[in-house]
Every structure is written in structure tokens, then in C-alpha cells.
């Protein structure tokens, strides 16, 4: 029987009518429209569907949405704030920690969960933790480097609004003005 479930995702409340068998993965992707969380293996192995629920990293493909009521849910869409990428996002960009990108939201969310609880993990701790997130493109070297870059404070988060300024400047270069 359908019921109303309120989910708090990335700080926003969503009231969704769902069957109790609705998986968190599908609630996020199909009911809320946050498609950054991906489905890879459907059995909790690959980590593409990783999200943080109540401070814990979980597989949303094996989690009932109804069991997440009242808990803070963080997905990849919740990381960038005020035009700034999360340092991990910035690091993955700069250090090439992705190729096809399908596992990337899960990798970044997993890395965030690690650094939230352990801001200075050892190399071994990173490898052990991240081994739950499969990637078929990178061989993991650049994912590892990206995370290490954040751990070592090498990443400067750029204000993405600078981009808008540049575009605005281009827009004001002339021709449209003379036409009007």
C-alpha cells in the first residue's frame, strides 16, 4: 500500500507517495529527479549508487527509501555550494580522477564519507575504503591521487561564478548593441 514518505535530500524536504518496496536509488532518481546517483550492479558491489544517509555511506540500490525517513541524505548533487565545487569535485577534475564518469558520483560521495569521518586517512585507509567503488576506466590511480590531493590540501576551490563573468563579458562585446 502506498504511503507518504518525507525524505530530506541535500537539505531539502521531498514528500513522496510510494510503495514501501521503493528503493532509495529509484526514489532519488525517478521520484525526485536527482539522477547523479547511478545504478551499476544492483547488488551493492560496485558503489555507483553510493549516497550518505544519516552520516553513513550506503548503497542506495539496497536501501528502502521508507527506512530513510528523518535522516539526512546526501547525494552528489548536494556537494557543490554557492557556485563552488566541493574540494573533492575540484580535485577529480584537476587530477583526472574520472574518465567515463559513471562511477564518479559514487566515488566522490564515498571519498566524502571517508574524509568526513577521517580527514587525514593513510594511503592504506584510502585504498581500503575506496575498494568498494569500482571503476573500469581509470585503474584507480588518478582517483587515489585526487583524494590524496584533498587530504594534502593541494586543491583550491575555484569560484565557478568567474565563468559567468567571462561569458557576460563576451556577450557585451559589441554587435548586439549596435543592432539595437
Amino acid at each position, binding site marked *: 500500500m502506498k504511503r507518504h514518505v518525507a525524505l530530506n535530500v541535500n537539505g531539502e524536504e521531498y514528500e513522496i507517495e510510494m510503495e514501501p518496496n521503493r*528503493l532509495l536509488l529509484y526514489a532519488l532518481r525517478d521520484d525526485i529527479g536527482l539522477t547523479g546517483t547511478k545504478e551499476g550492479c544492483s547488488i551493492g558491489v560496485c558503489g555507483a549508487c553510493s549516497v550518505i544517509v544519516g552520516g553513513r555511506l550506503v548503497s542506495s540500490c539496497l536501501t528502502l527509501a521508507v527506512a530513510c525517513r528523518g535522516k539526512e541524505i546526501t547525494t552528489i548533487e548536494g556537494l557543490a555550494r554557492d557556485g563552488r565545487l566541493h574540494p573533492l569535485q575540484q580535485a577529480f577534475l584537476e587530477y583526472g580522477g574520472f574518465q567515463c564518469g559513471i562511477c564518479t558520483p559514487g566515488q566522490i560521495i564515498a571519498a566524502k564519507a571517508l574524509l568526513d569521518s577521517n580527514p587525514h586517512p593513510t594511503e592504506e585507509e584510502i585504498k581500503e575504503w575506496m575498494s568498494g567503488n569500482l571503476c573500469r576506466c581509470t585503474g584507480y590511480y588518478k582517483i587515489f591521487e585526487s583524494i590524496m590531493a584533498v587530504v594534502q590540501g593541494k586543491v583550491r576551490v575555484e569560484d565557478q561564478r568567474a565563468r559567468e563573468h567571462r561569458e557576460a563579458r563576451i556577450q557585451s562585446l559589441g554587435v548586439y548593441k549596435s543592432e539595437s
Partner: protein
Amino acid sequence: MVKFEYFEPNSLEEACALLKEHGEDARLIAGGTALIIMMRQRLLNPRVVISLADIPDFDFIRFDAKDGLRIGAGARHRDIELAPVVQEHYPLLYETFRKVAQPRIRNMGTIGGNLVQGDPLTDPGASLIALDAKITLRNAGGHRVIPVENFFVDYYQTDLQPGEILTEIHVPPSLPGLAWAHIKFLPRSQEDFATVGVALTMRLNGDRCQDIRLAFNSVAPIIMRAKRAEEILRRQKVDDDRVGKMAEVASTEVDPMDDNRGSAEYKRELVRVLVRRAVKQALERSATGKQGAKQASAPA
């Protein structure tokens, strides 16, 4: 996945009552890591799912020097791994739980859920057997306590009776200086189920083995204790010859099957090798841990 009615009882009594009411149609859910997979694959199609998430204090981890360690069935693998009392008093459990799957699954899966699933490939059961742990099973009428080693009946079958809920795991007081080893042999990816899992505890008195418990996962339809093998070493001097013999007996006692991780024959071979390595590790640990060595040599 089949549609189901979903209950979230607030007490064990209520959960037991629901279980009694719905009988075979009902399934309990805790971490969900195993149940959801089976439901998604339509191997299980329960009409009723009873969540244990709202039962208060169902995930406790408590230690008392006299009583030992008590773990609520709802405790997650990750919490057991990180519990200071586990790390301090039960290094074997710490070593075992930190190797289960990966942190994300350890964050989800509960110890109770793991045991009732009866999956012979999983790690915790063997170490709990090696530590002579017991479990409490409750139903609407009362409860019973049985050793973990008697709980596993057959492939994915346990002694859990209809209407019962596994509520608690009890590990006896830790013996200081207990020699122990845990080997999870992963020949493919480090991110895999064990091809062979070995858990060993030994009480030593000098070079003699006062008592021993040897358990395996992934080498039989059940997580099993190798009692015949233990007898080779129990109350005997620990030397290469006897350890070799014990390993040999253990390799005949297990009942592995061919799968993607190796042939039955190979797994037997590994049991021979890994039992010897486990004893070696346990002895080394016992010799290097000063206090452990001292206590172990004290009269039992």
C-alpha cells in the same frame, strides 16, 4: 521486487507478535544487504516485511570483564569493527570484521542479519565459533540460547525457527593471552568473498595447547568448526608434526565445492596450508604480545 506490507515495530515483543501473526509470509529486515538482493532477484517474495530499525537499543555493544561481550543483533559490522571494547579485548573479532566486504556494506549489514542468512561465504561466523560465542533467539513465547557453532544447519539454512528473532550475540570473557589468527584468503580481487576463511583460537600453556577452536568459512555448505582437527592438537605439544597432522585432518573434514573461486580440491589444499599458517601466526602473536605470553603460560 514484489510489493509488501511494511511494519516498523517499536519493541521486540511487537516484532515477535507480528512475526507470529504473519508467519511464513513475513520477513525481517535489518541492514537489508542480503534480503533486498534476494527480493530484487525474486528469490524471496514476502508479503510482509518487518523492520527492526525502530527497536530501541537493538544495536548495543557492551563489554563486561566478567560477562564478556554482548552485541545486539542490529549492530552493524562497521560499528563492531570500530568499537573500542572490541578492538581492545577481542582483536580476533576486530581483525575479522574489518575484512568483511567493504566499509559501505559494513555500514549497512548487521551481525544478526549476517548470521541468520546462513551464507557460508561470509566471515563473522567462523570467528564467533572460534570464540565460543552464543546467540539468543527469541519468539513470542520466550527465548533460547545456543552456541553459534550449532546454528548453521545447511547451505543457507540455520536453526532459526519460524517466529524467532535473533536478538543478541554473546562472546565469553576474553582470555588475556589467547592465541588467535584469522586468515581470509583472497586469491582473486582483494575485494571478494574468501576462497577460504580460517579462524583459530588457542589457549597455550608453554608449548602445549590447552584448548583450541578452529573454524572455517567458504569450505563447506555451512560455516563450520573442525572438531576432529582440533583433537589432534588439544592438550598436546604444539610442534610442526602435529600441526601438519591437524592441517591434514582439517582438509578432510571440510566439504568444499567448486566455484568461481577455485575447485574443491584446491580449497582442501589451501586448508592444509592456511591452518599451518594460522597456527604460526597465533603462536607468533602469543610470543610477541608480552602480557599475552605471560598469562598464557600461567596455570589454567
